[in-house]
């Protein structure tokens, strides 16, 4: 069975239809991106999958278990973690403390109210591992508000990863990053463990093509095309949706 | 039957008094996101100042006219020169503003105590009812004229506020501001002035309520605190920011409180707090307030 199964999801806000009959099946280890112009409904889709918004119709299942309409914390406990488009970090705490809280979330020690938190070496170690993976070790003990924007985006991904998810949902991880920061991000994402399934919403095509093997294109809340980057590039409706010339450049067609 | 009518009208009178207090508070919150716990202080200051004016002029009507003007001026100055700059500075969150106004309430209580009780040695103070309103009038039963006046005043204010918000340009600006502050700002309206005026109006109403409450009843330092809890209950019931909700909430509160006291005194102290807690648990936005954000 597929790891993440989204069937026939729709969302309406009053008379406005934002997502219309969205389907997606992901297998373990897939690297899938959802792209589309602004307002296509990508974040709404993510909010529905991760429990922040209930869908009007359809179902979402993780390995056969129905998670439709569950609360965000229940969805995370079921194995799906997400990052946010706007940094949602603990600004006043250090990177180490941020990661430790994430790691602690599925530890049975999280209700322990008598032992010192710092004495749990295994939690500390795992936090360190994630920091290493996200190339954040040099700033491990620095407060988040002192980090660069790119580093914060890396931490945003790191926190989601620290929850040991089966499925990772990343909402525009490269939003607002510089070219160098984007390159780092691509490097980090491609080196994610192969048993983690990745679903990405992105605007930046370098990141999409660098990381994902499958793309779904969303426009006005419905799927316009789905397939490999090559297939999607050729699709006329996709090109129309992205408005001609700009699309051609974005899709890498105008390079010699 | 007489008992019932008497309490019914009493309830209406209480409703109107609380409405005068609550309507200012709710619009201030809806527009500026400030829970002005100092509102009780303005009520108290209105009563005390009204008393001073009354002592000087010996006229209830002059006290009624002038008393609220002081609270209005103080309110304007407070909002424009103290509260708004603090918010703009960015380091004071909205909850902090509630706490800050709470501190001001305590400060005012202490100040009034110092001036009137310690320095001037006054204990029992009251404004006398004017001769025109001092008697009773036959409304089926004999009922104090002054209380009818309060009901009339409250209804008159309700109507005026509604007209102001619904039928004037400035009212439209305020309603738009309650709905979307940034947009109003972007439209070039001097929101700071609007905020200060609305705040001042709220304080004027509180001062008015204070003068009215201080007439025939005793004025003391605890009155600001005593009126605040019913006011907050009404504001929450109606929905923070909604005037019609406030009116409805005031009616429900006034009637519940009065009828409970009359018919089930043991319950009366719980009835209204129970309403408040129930509302906050099951429908935190009140009758007509905005639904809470999902995320």
């Amino acid at each position, binding site marked *: 069975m597929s790891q993440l199964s989204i069937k026939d999801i729709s969302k309406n806000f009053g008379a406005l239809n934002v997502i219309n009959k969205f389907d997606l099946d992901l297998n373990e280890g897939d690297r899938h991106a959802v792209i589309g112009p602004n307002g296509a409904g990508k974040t709404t889709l993510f909010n529905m999958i*991760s429990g922040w918004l209930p869908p009007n119709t359809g179902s979402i299942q993780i390995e056969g278990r129905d998670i439709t309409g569950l*609360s*965000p*914390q229940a969805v*995370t406990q079921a194995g799906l*973690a997400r990052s*946010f488009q706007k940094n949602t*970090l*603990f*600004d*006043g*705490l250090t990177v180490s*403390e941020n990661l430790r*809280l*994430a790691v602690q*979330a599925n530890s049975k020690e*999280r209700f*322990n*109210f*008598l*032992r*010192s*938190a710092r004495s749990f070496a295994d939690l*500390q*170690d795992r936090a*360190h591992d994630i920091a*290493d*993976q996200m190339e954040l070790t040099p700033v491990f*003990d*620095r407060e988040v508000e002192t980090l660069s924007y790119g580093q914060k985006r890396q931490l945003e991904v790191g926190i989601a990863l620290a*929850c040991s998810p089966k499925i990772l949902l990343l909402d525009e991880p490269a939003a607002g990053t510089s070219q160098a920061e984007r390159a780092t991000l691509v490097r980090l994402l491609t080196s994610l463990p192969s048993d983690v399934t990745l679903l990405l919403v992105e605007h930046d095509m370098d990141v999409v093509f660098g990381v994902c093997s499958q793309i779904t294109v969303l426009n006005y809340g419905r799927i316009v095309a789905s397939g490999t980057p090559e297939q999607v590039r050729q699709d006329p409706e996709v090109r129309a949706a992205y408005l001609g010339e700009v699309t051609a450049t974005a899709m890498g067609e105008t390079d010699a | 039957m007489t008992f019932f009518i008497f309490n019914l009208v009493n309830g209406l009178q209480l409703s109107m008094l609380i409405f005068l207090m609550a309507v200012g508070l709710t619009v201030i919150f809806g527009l500026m996101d400030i*829970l002005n716990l100092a509102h009780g202080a303005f009520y108290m200051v209105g009563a005390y100042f009204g008393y001073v004016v009354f002592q000087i002029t010996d006229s209830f009507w002059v006290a009624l006219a002038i008393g609220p003007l002081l609270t209005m001026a103080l309110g304007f100055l407070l909002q424009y020169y103290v509260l708004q700059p*603090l918010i703009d500075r960015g*380091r004071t969150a*909205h909850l*902090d503003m509630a*706490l800050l106004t*709470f*501190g*001001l309430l*305590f*400060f005012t*209580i*202490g*100040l009034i*105590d110092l001036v009137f*009780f*310690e320095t001037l040695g006054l204990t029992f103070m009251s404004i006398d009812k004017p001769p025109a309103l001092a008697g009773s009038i036959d409304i089926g039963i004999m009922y104090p004229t002054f209380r009818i006046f309060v009901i009339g005043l409250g209804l008159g204010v309700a109507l005026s506020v509604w007209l102001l918000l619904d039928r004037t340009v400035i009212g439209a600006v305020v309603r738009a501001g309650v709905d979307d502050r940034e947009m109003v700002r972007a439209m070039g309206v001097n929101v700071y002035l609007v905020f200060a005026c609305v705040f001042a109006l709220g304080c004027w109403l509180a001062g008015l309520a204070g003068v009215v409450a201080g007439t025939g009843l005793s004025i003391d330092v605890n009155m600001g605190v005593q009126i605040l*809890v019913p006011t*907050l*209950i009404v504001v*929450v019931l109606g929905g923070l920011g909604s005037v019609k909700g406030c009116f409805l909430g005031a009616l429900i509160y006034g009637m519940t409180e009065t009828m409970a006291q009359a018919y089930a005194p043991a319950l009366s*102290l*719980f009835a209204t*707090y129970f309403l*408040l*807690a129930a509302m*906050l*648990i099951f429908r*935190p936005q009140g009758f007509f307030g905005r639904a809470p954000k999902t995320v």
Partner: protein
Amino acid sequence: MEQSQENNHRAQGGSDVTIHSPIAQQDARARKTFIFTALAGLLFLIALPFFAGEYHLSLASEILIFAILTSGMNLLLGYTGLVSLGHAAYLGVGAYATAVGTALLGYPVWFVMLAATFASLLISFGIGLLSVRTKGVQFLLITLAFGQMFHALAEKTRVTGGDDGMTGIPRIDLGFLGVDADHDQVFFYFVLACFVIALGFLRLVVRSPFGSVLVGIRENEKRMLAMGYSTFPYKALAFGISGMLAGLAGSLWVQHSFFVNPHIMTWQMSGEALLMVIIGGSKAFFGPLLGAAFYVLAKDILSDITEAYLMFFGLLFVLVVAFFHGGIAGFISQIFIRIGRSDRKDL
């Protein structure tokens, strides 16, 4: 793979990195400062009855009792970010439960104290379950509402003396130690012992994983939910613990003053407790203690000049909320930073 080699290395010297990194050194220094301050303070308090008169000793007991209340409140306020205007209710529960249990029902005080503290825990946890569904301003109002209900209950209940309250409440029987708690010096040591136990317990909670979750909730509740934490039980438990400590404070208070009346549950009382927490400093562990000390001492000094101490406190409260978020504790640590020692914010 590189990763597993590093893992092995770290598994062997597990916390090596945490001990030697600069922040860890700062941490260790902060801990030493904390322990030093705490011990110094404790020694001072132990020595106090030897040079302080009865009146000042009584003030000191008051300070410690309020400090238990305010430190408990700060678990909810400073650490979890929830501002309650109704905690006097649990102070009252502890006080009245003690009064009823001893003066009316005749049970031994030590037993009643435990029962009263436990009752406060249960009741405040129950109310917490209802209240923490809201936050911010709404939470403020709902705690106020419940506080008012308890006050009304106390005023109306004839068995507890209604508005007049109850008198003649006995102090704990320390006869088995050969001392009489009716002597203010003895009672002071008893209060000190309770204070040490209460704050010791709080210290454990605050440094535990549970405590770290509370901080996370305060800093960014949305993120906590996204990480998989059910924030609701944590907030309710924090509410319960803070109510429990308020109950303990109430129980001690009623023994200290030998009487209780509904005034202990007014929202003025809740407000003054809030004043203490915030003026003392909600971001530091000993901030609430400083706030309690400041409040009791300032009120004592001011009462020679004026009864209107609220004016002074109200103004100070406004200034702290507007400009000095760290309160007195924050002010003190700023001084130390300027002297050259860095005290990292204790979380």
